[in-house]
């Protein structure tokens, strides 16, 4: 059994180090989605780092593209590109920019403009159905992102085409740049909204990697229906001083804050 806790803590330490060195990044959302990404990349998805466009691979789309830091650290760790390249994050002429780019091996589609990922995921899942392929498509969205109308266009289409090979995930951390999601633009009752759009909805702890893996592996929960997993998370998860504080949406840790964070994560050294 893989030590998911160690994997997740190490990726958190790497992404914080990367953001610190770059002087820019979306710290809070990256930390809240790490465990979901770890569950997918170390426990669920089929992929080949030496053949990124392997036609049969499972597809993953990071619709909340601003949380790219955790994804980049994972793609490097599993072998899509050298880990040392993480030091170029957001630097002059780097291909590791602040949002997912198809120039990076392992990234399926450019994202960053919110509300786009689900539609692309619908296309990938529908393509699999039409071509008789067995890959599964996963799309990770933010909760603030739910205010984008295009998401609901994609939600309708997924149910209409009975895409039970599509799993959407919401990183439900309750915080967006301006504050609590319920005060900015209330989303609740989120589960009921998705159910009424024809989806099967499951809620779970978005930081329990073992549970997340079980949850994803058990999809589809109902034949002929797409699945939505509402992963309840904490923005800034893993570092006490960053948890549930909106300013860490794109706050950058200084040297002291980074040292404290690594101590807290129990990671002595980050090898980038």
């Amino acid at each position, binding site marked *: 059994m893989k030590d998911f806790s160690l994997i997740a803590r190490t990726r958190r330490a790497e992404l914080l180090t990367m953001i610190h060195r770059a002087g820019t990044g979306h710290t809070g959302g990256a930390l809240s989605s790490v465990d979901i990404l770890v569950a997918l990349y170390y426990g669920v998805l089929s992929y080949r780092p030496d053949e990124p466009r392997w036609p049969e691979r499972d597809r993953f789309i990071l619709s909340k593209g601003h949380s790219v830091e955790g994804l980049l650290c994972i793609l490097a760790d599993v072998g899509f590109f050298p880990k040392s390249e993480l030091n170029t994050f957001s630097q002059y002429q780097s291909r590791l920019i602040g949002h997912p780019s*198809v120039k990076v091996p392992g990234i399926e*589609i450019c994202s960053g403009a919110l509300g*786009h990922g689900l539609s692309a995921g619908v296309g990938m899942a529908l393509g*699999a159905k039409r071509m008789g392929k067995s890959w599964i498509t996963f799309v990770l969205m933010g909760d603030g992102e739910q205010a984008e109308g295009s998401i609901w266009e*994609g939600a309708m289409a997924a149910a209409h085409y009975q895409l039970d090979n599509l799993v959407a995930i919401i990183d439900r951390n309750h915080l967006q740049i301006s504050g609590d999601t319920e005060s900015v633009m209330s989303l609740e009752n989120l589960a009921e909204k998705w159910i009424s759009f024809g989806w099967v909805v499951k809620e779970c702890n978005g930081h329990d990697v073992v549970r997340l893996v079980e949850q994803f592996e058990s999809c589809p929960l109902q034949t002929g229906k797409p699945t939505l997993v509402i992963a309840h998370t904490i923005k800034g998860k893993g570092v006490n001083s960053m948890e549930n504080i909106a300013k860490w949406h794109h706050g950058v840790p200084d040297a002291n804050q980074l040292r404290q964070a690594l101590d807290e994560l129990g990671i002595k050294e980050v090898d980038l």
Partner: protein
Amino acid sequence: MSIPCRQAFSEKILELAQTDESIVVLCSDSRGSVTLGKYASELPEQFVEVGIAEQNCIGIAAGLSNAGMKPFVAGPACFYSMRSAEQVKVDLAYSNSNVKVIGISGGVSYGALGTSHHSLQDIATMTAIPNLTVILPADAWQTKAMTEALTRHEGPVYVRMGRGAVPDVYGPDGMTGLSPEFAIGEAIELMTGQDVLITATGETVSLAYQAGLRLAEEGLSTTVLDLPTLMPLDEKAILGASTRCKVVISVEEHSMNGGLGSLVASLLCENMPRPMKKIAFPNENLVTGTSSQVFQHYGLTVENIVSQARLLLERGGTK
């Protein structure tokens, strides 16, 4: 043929999709307007209906191309070039998705339906998106040749065509008699002369050619250049033709701002300035009328092209 370009597209894509099962056509409640009813009923597995949701349609098409299919999105140009502009920019162009967007009933095709249904900004918008090819076919013959070329071309493309039947520029009965050979990025010289250069794109090419004939009758030798591809622009052809001409005219079914005229003017301005007249629509909400009334009202006519050419020459062209 003298049929609408959208019909030429629909006939050709059906023929091509019958032997290439990776082709898939997506519509947003637009199969009737595009004339894709036959395609949808004959090839239901290669057709996707998304309802009235252009943003979703482009995103789904990007996903289908990632899956290994060759998606063609077909619906009104006014909506695809504006409502889903961000999806075209990010999901298609930035992501280098192999998706073709066929914008139909473009320009002022919808005439009296008003500004909401006109697409007079699409050349400006789409040619400013990196890694996006932009094409406006001149007639049904060129549309068929283009459609075939698009199935062989890897990468994102935006195409705009009109609603009504267009006189044949190409083909055996066409006004030029030229065969409709089409290569992305290449201009076609329809007539060669030394006094006036008329550049045109899309369904105004037939007007430009007729104006060229009229000028020739008056003893003014004219070059008429059909520029079906606006991005990448065939700069070599434009500069080559303008080298030997004294004045330049551009004709297009688009706003004065950011269309063919702007592209040609900035190219010439940096390389070989020429007295020039842009024939296009003013940047305003246009007068109500059928598309031909609107064309007449704003001077998108053979007569106006001819008289503007004369005026430019009278004022003194480049020697």
